[in-house]
Structure formats: structure tokens, C-alpha cells
């Protein structure tokens, strides 16, 4: 250890990511019912690091330092408790003997075992019997190292609500005796879908919700991608749909920087400065989409990623391949006939066929009466059909349905543009 002056030698989010890894590994070692203890050990470890590293003693290998301290704390806990059978049935015999105690613990901290533990943790947190909102909260807490306060900020709610969601998840884990394991073959498909769905929602939460705290939103997107990455790399879960989801996330996040202007207003796809799109992410999006083609499999993520890829490939909004996008939405709608997909299909038809076709399709949709984007889209088409009165009315309805400051600004602008000159 040396006292250095370099403050930039720690990777961004190192603590957060290591927290997720160590909680996963320690829960596997100590048993899922000791999740709290795992959290406590990790918190202690990070505090110890913070207290000494703050004085500029950064170890040469910070990650190894953290793992060593966490390991020792876990071994202390195991020696103290001596209830190996209850703690960790999988490792009972290995943990009982001093000869095998340390090697067993060390072994779990090897790189491939770490990602294996994270994968098990994802399957447990996203167990289908846990309500989805609780799945996401628990995932953010255990795998992503976010505090309850940070999760509450990401979801624009209070800490109590998030604590309740996490509590509910833990109760389910106890009641259903959910284990930290990768599901067996016949269960795997169905369980994997639940994990992917949860990551998809987490990503969208970050991507779509416009809220004052830009950073925390980007964190949600980044964490969803990081976890999706882990699933993609693991041989048991590297299905084409996993890659398709990751591809979709790459395309979407490539546009994050172009989505807001300097004053925090939302810029729609049409008005975005495409030079601000992040090219390396777009490239990755295409790579994963290619990889998702084989073996043949169809998922909603495939269609959504393909649609996103067509947007990414268009040099200007006007050059977008709307006929293909419309076709993809038609196929997506067959697989997932819900009103939001119907809305997007209708919007695509407005460009692929014509505005009146788009309007017809939009007006037939039931179930989006309280969704501001629906009314915004209807307003947009009325506006382009030069029916400014009707457009204005739709924008006003939309305005009443959103509390987001950024979206309100955007809508007020649109309403003003409908006023007769």
C-alpha cells in the first residue's frame, strides 16, 4: 500500500458493483436466508475501505482488497455461528473443517463463481411468485448496490414504499423457500423470461420516466444492461432472446444523450441531433442483434430490437424505413397484442402509409384514455393534417395526464403552436 495522490484510480461505480457481487457470493455461501448478514458484511467491508482509502492509501488491487476483507468477515461469522447445517446446507461439510473452510470461501470468490452467484441471485430476485415491482426493488438493492433512498428516487416514490416492496419480496422468498440456484432445464425457459422481463422494465423505467434526477435514471439503464450482459455471457442462459434484449438496450441507450436539450426538455426522435447518438453502442446493438439470429427463436425483444436498429440506421428522420418498421410492429402486435404496441403500430402506419390511416388506427385503440402519450400522438397527427383545433384539444388532454415537468413544457409548446396566428 502506498500513499498516492491519484484520485482517479478507482473505477466509476466500483463500490456499487462490488457490493452487488459480494452480496451475491456471500448469500450463496451463508444461505439465502442470511441475505441481511451478507448485506451487513458488505456494508462493513465498504466502510472499512472508505475509512482507510480516504486517507489516500489505495491498495494496488482494490477489488482483491475488498474481497479479502469480506472473506475474512464471512469466515469470522461462520466460525462464530457454527450452525453450518442451518446456514448453508450446500457447504456444510466443507465449512465444518478448518482445513477446507478458507479454500471453500476463496473458491467462491473466483471470477466465474462470482458471475455464477450473480446469475443465481437474479433468478431468485426475479422469481415469478414475487410481484414484479418487488422483483425490481430487490434486484436493485442486492445486485446493483443501490440504497433504499436511491431506489425511491429512481421510482419517484418514498423510502417506505420501497422498503415495503423489498419486505414483500423477502417474505415470498421465505414462504416459497426460494433457493439461490439456476433453475433446472424444464423450468429454465419460463424463469429466464421472468428475469428478462424484470430487466426490460428496469431499463424502461430509467429510459422513459422523465424526472429531474437524470443521473439516477441513467443508472437504472446501466444496471439493467450490466445484468443483461452477465446473462448473455453465461452458457446456460445465453439464449437468442437474451441477446436481442441486450441489443435493444444498446440501441436505446445510444440515444440517451440526445434525448434532452440543455434546459431539460425532452427531444423526440424526430428532432434529435443524430450526431449525438453514441456510435459504439449502436455498433454493439447491431452485433448483438446479429448474434440473436441463431438458433432461430422469436421474441418480442427481437422485434423491438429490429425496430430500434432501423431507427439507428436512418441518417435523418425522413429517411427512416417506415414500411419495414410498420411491418415489424404488425408482427410484434401479433405476439403481444396490447394497446401500447397498437399505438406504436398506428404511429408507424402514419408514416408508412399515410396520416389518415395512422389516425384511424389510433382512434380505434381502447384502453389508453389515461395515457398522455396516446393523446400526444393523436394531437401530432391532427396537427399534421392541419386540424389545429382538434390537435390543441388532444395536447390539452395530454397535459392534464402528465406531471413530468419536461413533458409538460413540451406539450405547452405544442399547444401554443396550435393557436391561430
Amino acid at each position, binding site marked *: 500500500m502506498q500513499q498516492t*495522490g491519484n*484520485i482517479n484510480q*478507482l473505477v466509476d461505480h*466500483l*463500490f456499487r458493483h*462490488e457490493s452487488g457481487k459480494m452480496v451475491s457470493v456471500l448469500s450463496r455461501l451463508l444461505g439465502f436466508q442470511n441475505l441481511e448478514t451478507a448485506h451487513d458484511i458488505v456494508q462493513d467491508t465498504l466502510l472499512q*475501505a*472508505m475509512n482507510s482509502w*480516504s486517507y489516500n492509501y489505495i491498495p494496488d488491487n482494490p477489488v482483491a482488497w475488498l474481497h479479502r476483507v469480506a472473506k475474512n468477515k464471512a469466515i469470522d461469522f461462520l466460525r462464530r455461528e457454527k450452525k453450518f447445517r442451518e446456514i448453508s446446507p450446500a457447504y456444510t461439510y466443507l465449512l465444518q473443517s478448518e482445513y477446507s473452510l478458507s479454500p471453500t470461501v476463496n473458491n467462491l470468490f473466483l471470477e466465474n463463481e462470482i458471475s455464477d452467484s450473480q446469475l443465481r441471485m437474479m433468478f431468485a430476485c426475479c422469481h415469478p411468485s414475487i410481484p414484479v415491482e418487488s422483483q425490481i426493488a430487490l434486484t436493485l438493492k442486492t445486485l446493483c448496490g*443501490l440504497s433504499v433512498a436511491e431506489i425511491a428516487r429512481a421510482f419517484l416514490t418514498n423510502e417506505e414504499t420501497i422498503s415495503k416492496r423489498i419486505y414483500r419480496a423477502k417474505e415470498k422468498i421465505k414462504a416459497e423457500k426460494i433457493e439461490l440456484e439456476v433453475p433446472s432445464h424444464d423450468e429454465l425457459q419460463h424463469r429466464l423470461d421472468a428475469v428478462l422481463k424484470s430487466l426490460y422494465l428496469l431499463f424502461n423505467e430509467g429510459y422513459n420516466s422523465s424526472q429531474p434526477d437524470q443521473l439516477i435514471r441513467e443508472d437504472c439503464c446501466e444496471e439493467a444492461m450490466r445484468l443483461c450482459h452477465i446473462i448473455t455471457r453465461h452458457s446456460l442462459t445465453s439464449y437468442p432472446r437474451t441477446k436481442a434484449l441486450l441489443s435493444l438496450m444498446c440501441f436505446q441507450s445510444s440515444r440517451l444523450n440526445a434525448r434532452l436539450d440543455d434546459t431539460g426538455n425532452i427531444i423526440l426522435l424526430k428532432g434529435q441531433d443524430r450526431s449525438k447518438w453514441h456510435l459504439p453502442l449502436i455498433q454493439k446493438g447491431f452485433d448483438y442483434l446479429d448474434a440473436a439470429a441463431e438458433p432461430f427463436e422469436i421474441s418480442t425483444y427481437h422485434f423491438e430490437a429490429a425496430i430500434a436498429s432501423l431507427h439507428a440506421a436512418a441518417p435523418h428522420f425522413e429517411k427512416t424505413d417506415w414500411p419495414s418498421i410498420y411491418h415489424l410492429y404488425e408482427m410484434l402486435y401479433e405476439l403481444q397484442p396490447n394497446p401500447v404496441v397498437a399505438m406504436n403500430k398506428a404511429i408507424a402506419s402514419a408514416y408508412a402509409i399515410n396520416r389518415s390511416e395512422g389516425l384511424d388506427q389510433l382512434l380505434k385503440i381502447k384502453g389508453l384514455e389515461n395515457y398522455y402519450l396516446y393523446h400526444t400522438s393523436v394531437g401530432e397527427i391532427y396537427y399534421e393534417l392541419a386540424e389545429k383545433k382538434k390537435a390543441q384539444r388532444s395536447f390539452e388532454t395530454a397535459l392534464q395526464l402528465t406531471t413530468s415537468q419536461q413533458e409538460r413544457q413540451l406539450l405547452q409548446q405544442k399547444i401554443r403552436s396550435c393557436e391561430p396566428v
Partner: protein
Amino acid sequence: MEKFMLIFQGGDMHGVSPEQMQASMSKWMAWIDRLAKKEQYVSGEPLIPGGKLVSGAGGKTVTDGPYTEGKEVVGGFFVIKAKDMDEAVAISKDCPDFDLGTAVQVRQVMKMDM
């Protein structure tokens, strides 16, 4: 230049997230860096919590401790150089952890002029 000891006391880490810890740590390092560049940083060490208290005639009594109130526990110290107490106090105000309840005790090192 005079020498001063900054003694960091207390601070509540309850519920602090990993991200906040890393952020706080970066601020500490940046603070040390700034002082070092101005040649005002002499040394600094963190202290392990807990310890022993030796007292009584001949140091006979050794107890665990000092167990003081959490807000008084010393977490570490800096030795810095400053023109006078005012400057040392000004420097202390850069401590990144006031939000977490940390307090800084500023003490001047006595010079023995013989």
C-alpha cells in the same frame, strides 16, 4: 507556517449507499491532493474503531474503550501546515463529511522554543 492537527470525530454511516461512500472517498482524496499540492499536507491516518484505555497509578487499569458517544469517536486525523488558526479552520471547512455528522477538532501543535 504552524502545524495543526485536524481530528475527525463522529459521522453517521447508517444507510449510506456504496455509491455515496465512493463519492465521499473521492472527495477526501481530492482534498488531500489539493493540500499536498500547496505543500500543506504533512500526514494523515485513519484509526481502527475501539481500543484500550490505560489509566490509574502506574497504568494499572487497562479497559476496553474509550467507549464514548458515537458522535465523539475519533475516526482519524490529519497533520497540516497553515499560517494561523484562521487558515487551519478555513481548511477544515473543506472536510467532505459534514453532511454525515462529522465534526473536526482543530488543534495547533505547540512549538517548543528553547
